[in-house]
């Protein structure tokens, strides 16, 4: 990671109002904590009340951390456009067509238009979600078997 990468990441963090960020790979380690003046005042006030050992979780939108990780690992360039594939309804997320079958896709894989990438199941409707463009799977944002909400991002993909 060079200085330009770090500048880009800081820019991204600021523009998306990400408050805390931490990355570690091998010897490389990077952490940011961004606070607005109001938050800083609130935090200072609340610190007197907080219990030792309790740390607030980073607040990010779904997919942001994965996006940054992919960026830092060199999978994405400055010009890369990343799209989300979202769930069309509430249901269980499955990565493979059945428990004994391999996953539809893996991160890094390039898939053609109309390729199925997962199943969302609700009330015994198995909804196979297909990509509507040729793309690279950047990251998978939910765990196999996890219950997902309407419009919840499931994948980050890079259109090709």
């Amino acid at each position: 990671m060079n200085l330009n990468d770090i500048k880009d990441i800081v820019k991204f963090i600021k523009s998306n109002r990400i408050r805390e960020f931490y990355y570690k790979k091998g010897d490389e380690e990077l952490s940011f904590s961004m606070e607005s003046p109001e938050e800083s005042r609130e935090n200072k006030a609340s610190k007197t009340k907080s219990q030792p050992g309790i740390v607030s979780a980073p607040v990010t939108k779904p997919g942001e951390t994965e996006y940054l990780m992919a960026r830092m690992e060199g999978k994405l360039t400055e010009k890369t456009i990343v799209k989300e594939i979202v769930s069309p309804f509430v249901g269980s997320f499955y990565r493979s067509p059945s428990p004994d079958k391999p996953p539809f896709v893996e991160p890094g894989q390039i898939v053609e238009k109309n390729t199925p990438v997962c199943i969302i199941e609700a009330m015994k409707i198995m909804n196979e979600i297909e990509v509507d463009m040729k793309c690279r799977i950047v990251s998978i944002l939910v765990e196999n078997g996890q219950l997902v909400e309407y419009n919840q991002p499931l994948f980050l993909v890079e259109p090709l």
Partner: protein
Amino acid sequence: MEFIDIFEIKKGIKGTFIGKNLYYEEKVDSTSNLARDLAAKGAKNGSAVIADCQEKGRGRNGKTWSSPCGCNIYMSILLKPKFSPEIAQGMTLIAAVSVADSILELTGLAPKIKWPNDILINSRKVSGILTEMSTRNKLIDHIIVGIILNVNAERDSFGPEIRDIASSLLIESGKEEHIDRNRMISSILNKFDRYYEMFLSTGLSPVLEQYQKYFGMMGKEIEIKVNGKTVKGIIAGIDPMGALLLKTADNQLERVVSGEINF
């Protein structure tokens, strides 16, 4: 043994579009797989695929369904709707009510629905419905409603591991005379057509009203596996979207859309 007669089935079709196009194969791996292939080749909305034998009948989570030849109904209905995927769950309830109505009318047996759409008679499963939907960019490409109904299967066609929990209409009727599968298929397609029209014009409420008549689980204490964890509770009802409402021990009402129920 009575045979599947596609002309007999066609004669019995009264609906406006479900079952207007029928595809029949004596033996398939799965009627839903064939329906998917036909969908890709431009098969029409409302087409039905019927087979006499099914080699890879499947249920939820990759479970298989014993599908012997010459005695049961293996059928898939292809839909290419314009509505949103969010309300597609209605199809699974429409299928359940269509099968339950047909069983009641043609055999006099008393079907019960186990949420969301298993059909039981005397607490034994006689029908399973598994629906597949394909969506792209939150738009439905197609829906395939797969229906298996054990009609004339004999007791010895069920393996010992499922003999106590699965059955057929013939076994439950206690009669020797076989039930006419052709009439049963036409009836299911006609009912599906009627409920589907109602769904498109007025929504799911008329379907749910009928569903409640067969719903045999109100007040039952159940366990349901959701996302790897087991939730216990008492069934409090079905919501307007067809989801199961479960009252848990801490008096909370949980809305369940997915999971495997155990009594």
